[in-house]
C-alpha cells in the first residue's frame, strides 16, 4: 500500500499490520465470470416463456379481476358498498394503502440506503425490489383514489385551476400525501429506469446479434444508445448516487407524511410524536418481508443460488430482525408514554387495543411483528429457506394488522362512548383487497419475463474479477 502514500513516509506501525483472517463472504459463488452472469440473466428474458409462467400469469389475472370487479361495482354504486360507517370512516382502504406503500419502501431502502452505505450485497436483489416498489405503489394508489368516491373528480387533488376558484388545502396531511406519493412513484420509476439503461443496452446488442430486430429496437430505444463509455459511467454513477441520496430522504418523508395523516390529528392512539420514524421502520420491515417472499421463490425457480447466496438471505433476515425490533421499541415506548402521559383517553386507547374488541388483531400484530423476527437470531433458522419464507409471510400479515390496529381501534372507540362502534369489512372490500395481490403479481410476472431481474452491470462490478487492483482468480 506504500505506493499510494507517496506524499509522506509510511508510518512504522504499518509494518506491524497483520490482519487476522476473516474473509468476507463472496457475493457471487463458484467464481462465476462476467459472461456467465450475462448469459444467466439475459437467458431468462431471451428464452422461451416457461409453462409455469403462463399458469401463474393466468391465476394472477384471475385474482386481479376481483379488484377490477370490486372497483367497478364501487364506482357504479357508491362508496357505501364498503363497510365504512360512523365512527370508522377510514378502514380497510387506508389500511391497504399504508400496507402497500410500506411494502414499497424496502425496494427503495435496498436501492438507495444500502447503496449509500456501500452494502455490495444489495446488487443481486435491488432490481426486483425496485420493481416491487413500483408495483406496490401502484396497488397502494388504488385505495385512496377510489375512496374519494367520485373518481372522475380525482384531479381535484392537484392544484389545477377549476371553476370554483378555490385551491387545495395545503394544511391538510392528505394533500401532502398526494405530493408525497406521486413524487415517490415518479422518482421510483426514474431510479429504476436509470438503473436499467446499461442492461437494456446489453439486451439490445444481444438481440441485434441474433437478428431479432424488433426486440433490439424496443430495448434499444429505452437504452438511449448506451455504449458503456467510462466517461458516461462517471456521470452515470454520480447521477445514480445522487438519486440514491435523494431517494433516502424521500422514502423517509413518504412514510413520515403517511404517519402525519394520523399523527397531526387529536385522536388518542394517533397523535404521538414517535409516529414518523416508527412508521418508517415498520415500512422497511414489511418491505423486507415482501422482498423475501418474492426473492426466495425466484431464486429457486431460476436457479440463482450463485447470485442470491446464503449471505444475502442472512442479511435480509438480519435487517428484518433489526427493523422488527425497532418496531417493538416503538410499541413499548408508545404504550409506556400513553401511561406516563396520564391522559385518560390516550391510556384507554392502548388498553382497548390490547384488551378490547380488537384484542385479537393486536396480539396477531405483536406476535407477527415482534416475536416472529426474533427467530432470525438463529443461524439454523436463517439457513432453512422454507422456514424463512414462512416467517416472511408472517411479517407481511403482521404489518397489515399493525395498520388495522392503529387505524380501526382508535376510530372505533375514541372520546365519547355513545358514538363508539365496531367495524367489519364488506365482501366488496375484501375482494378488492384480495385482488390487489393479483394486480401486483400480474405486474411482477410481466417484469420477470421482459426485464433483466438483476442489474448485470452492478453484479459484475462486485465480483472479485471486477477489482482493477485485487487478486485475479481467472
Amino acid at each position, binding site marked *: 500500500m506504500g505506493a499510494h502514500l507517496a506524499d509522506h513516509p509510511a508510518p512504522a506501525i504499518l509494518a506491524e499490520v497483520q*490482519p487476522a483472517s476473516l474473509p468476507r463472504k463472496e457475493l457471487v459463488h463458484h467464481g462465476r465470470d462476467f459472461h456467465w452472469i450475462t448469459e444467466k440473466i439475459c437467458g431468462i428474458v431471451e428464452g422461451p416463456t416457461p409453462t409455469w409462467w403462463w399458469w401463474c400469469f393466468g391465476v394472477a389475472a384471475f385474482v386481479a379481476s376481483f379488484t377490477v370487479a370490486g372497483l367497478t361495482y364501487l364506482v357504479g354504486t357508491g362508496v357505501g358498498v364498503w363497510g365504512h360507517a360512523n365512527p370508522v370512516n377510514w378502514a380497510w382502504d387506508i389500511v391497504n394503502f399504508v400496507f402497500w406503500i410500506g411494502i414499497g419502501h424496502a425496494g427503495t431502502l435496498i436501492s438507495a440506503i444500502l447503496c449509500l452505505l456501500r452494502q455490495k450485497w444489495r446488487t443481486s436483489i435491488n432490481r426486483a425490489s425496485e420493481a416491487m416498489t413500483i408495483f406496490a405503489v401502484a396497488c397502494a394508489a388504488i385505495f385512496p383514489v377510489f375512496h374519494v368516491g367520485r373518481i372522475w373528480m380525482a384531479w381535484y387533488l392537484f392544484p389545477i385551476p377549476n371553476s370554483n376558484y378555490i385551491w387545495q388545502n395545503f394544511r391538510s396531511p392528505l394533500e401532502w400525501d398526494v405530493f408525497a406519493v406521486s413524487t415517490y412513484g415518479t422518482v421510483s420509476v426514474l431510479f429504476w429506469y436509470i438503473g436499467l439503461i446499461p442492461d437494456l443496452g446489453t439486451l439490445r446488442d444481444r438481440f441485434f446479434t441474433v437478428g431479432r430486430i424488433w426486440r433490439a429496437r424496443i430495448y434499444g430505444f429505452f437504452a438511449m444508445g448506451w455504449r458503456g463509455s467510462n466517461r458516461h459511467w462517471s456521470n452515470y454513477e454520480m447521477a445514480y448516487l445522487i438519486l440514491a441520496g435523494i431517494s433516502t430522504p424521500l422514502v423517509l418523508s413518504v412514510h413520515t407524511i403517511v404517519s402525519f395523516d394520523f399523527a397531526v390529528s387529536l385522536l388518542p392512539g394517533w397523535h404521538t410524536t414517535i409516529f414518523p420514524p416508527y412508521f418508517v421502520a415498520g415500512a422497511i420491515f414489511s418491505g423486507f418481508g415482501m422482498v423475501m417472499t418474492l426473492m426466495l421463490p425466484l431464486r429457486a425457480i431460476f436457479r440463482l443460488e450463485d447470485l442470491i447466496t446464503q449471505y444475502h438471505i442472512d442479511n435480509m433476515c438480519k435487517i428484518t430482525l433489526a427493523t422488527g425490533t425497532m418496531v417493538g*421499541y416503538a410499541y413499548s415506548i408508545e404504550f409506556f408514554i400513553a401511561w406516563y402521559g396520564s391522559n385518560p383517553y390516550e391510556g384507554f386507547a392502548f388498553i382497548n387495543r390490547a384488551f378490547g374488541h380488537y384484542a385479537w388483531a393486536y396480539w396477531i400484530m405483536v406476535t407477527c411483528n415482534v416475536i416472529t423476527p426474533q427467530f432470525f437470531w438463529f443461524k439454523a433458522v436463517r439457513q432453512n429457506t422454507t422456514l424463512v419464507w414462512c416467517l416472511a409471510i408472517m411479517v407481511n400479515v403482521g404489518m397489515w394488522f399493525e395498520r388495522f390496529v392503529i387505524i380501526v381501534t382508535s376510530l372505533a372507540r375514541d372520546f365519547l362512548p355513545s358514538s363508539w362502534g365496531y367495524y367489519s369489512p364488506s365482501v366488496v372490500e375484501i375482494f378488492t383487497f384480495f385482488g390487489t395481490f393479483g394486480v401486483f403479481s400480474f405486474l411482477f410476472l410481466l417484469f420477470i419475463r421482459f426485464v433483466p431481474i438483476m442489474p448485470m452491470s452492478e453484479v459484475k462490478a462486485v465480483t472479485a474479477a471486477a477489482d482493477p487492483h485485487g487478486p485475479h482468480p481467472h
Partner: protein
Amino acid sequence: MSAPAPIAAPRTGTALGIGAAGIALTAVGVFVSGLEKAATSWLIALTFWIGIGIGMLLLVMIHHIFDAGWSTVIRRQYEHALAAFKWLALLFVPLLLLAWLQPGLIWGWMNLATPLHDGHGTVGTDVLYLKKSGFLNRDMFTGCTAAFFGIWIGLSYFFRRNSFSQDGDGDVKWTLSNRKFAAAGLPLTALSLTFAIIFWVKSLEYHWFSTMYGVWFFAGCMRAALSTGVIIMVWLWNRGDYRGILNNNHLHCIGQLMLSFTVFWAYVTFSQYFLIWNANVPEETFWYNLREMNNSDGQPNQWKWVGLTLLFGHFFLPFLLLLWYPLKLSKKWIPRVGAWIIFIFFLDLCYNIMPAFKDHHGDPEPFLQPGLLWTLAATAGIGGVCVWAYLRSFATTKLIPIRDPRIVESLTHHEANAP
C-alpha cells in the same frame, strides 16, 4: 516500534488539571449562585459528555454489527474514549446524593412538597404526578441510573478488552465476540439511553410527554460522537500519528455520516415540533410555549432566539456546509464544523434542561445569566476528566487495531469506490 508516539506527560496532566479546575470552579458556584444553579450546570455538563460517550458506544456497535471495513482505524479512538464511562458514573454520584439529601432541588417530583409552577398545590396533590409515581420515584431513579451505567460500562469493557486483546494474539474470536456483544448491546443501549434521558431531562417537566424524545437524544449523541471522532482524527493527523493511515475517503465517509445524522436530527426534531404545533393540544404545547415566550406576560424570551439558533445552527448551517464535497476533505474546516456541531449539541441540551427551572413568575430562567458560567465550568471540568481518561487509555495500546481482520481494508480505503 510498537507503542504510539508517547503522549507527553504534561498533556495528560493538563487534561486532569483542567478537569480538577473546572470541578472546583463549579463547587465555587455552589456558594456564589446556590446549589440549584450549580447542580443544574452539573446535570447539563454530565448529560453532554455522557451523550458523546453513548454516541461513541453506538458507533462501535454499529461498526461491528455491519462488519464495517473503512471505519476500523477510527474505531480504536472511540474505544479509548469509552474508558471515560466509569469516571462519568463516579461524577454522577453527586447528583444522586443530591436527590437523596435535597430531594426536589433539581427534579421537583422527588419532593411531594414542591409547589407547582401554576401556584395551585404541590407535587403531592398533583394527579399527574400521582399517576406517574410508580415510575417517577427516587428508588426507580437511583436503580435505573445505576443500571444504565452498568450497561454502558459493561459493554465498554468488553469492546475494549476484545479489541485490545486482538492486538496481541490476532485471534478472530475477539471480532466474533464483539459482534455478539454489539447485537445484544444495541437494543440495551437504545432502551437505556431512552430511559436515561426521560429520567434525567424529560422528567424535569414531568407534565410533558413525547414519544420521540429518546430518538431525539439518540440523534444528538450520534452527531456529537461523530464530530468528536473527526476532531480526534484530524488532531492525530496534525500530530503526525495518522499520516499514512488516514486518507480522504475516511474523511469523506465520516463527513457523509455527519451529514446524514444532521438530516436525521432535523427530521426527528422537526417531527416532534411539527406534530405538537399542528395538533395544538395545551398539555403538549406548553413545553414549546415556555421556550418561546414568558408565561407571565407573553413576551418573547431568550429561548426563542436559542430555538432559532438551533434551527439554523444545528441544521441549516452544518447541512449546507457538509453538502459541499471539498469541505468534508478539508482538514482545516471539517474539525471546525465538528466543533460547531458539538457546541450546538450542548446548546440543544441547555434548551431542553434550563427552561425547566422557573423564576417566581413561573417564567423560565433566561439563557444568558451568570449561572451559565458554572455550566461552562462544569462542562470543562467533566470534559477534562473524559479527555484524561482517553489519553490515559491511548498511551496503553497500539494506535490502530493492527490485527483486526478488516484493518487492511480500512487502510486501503482510498482505493475503494469513491464517488
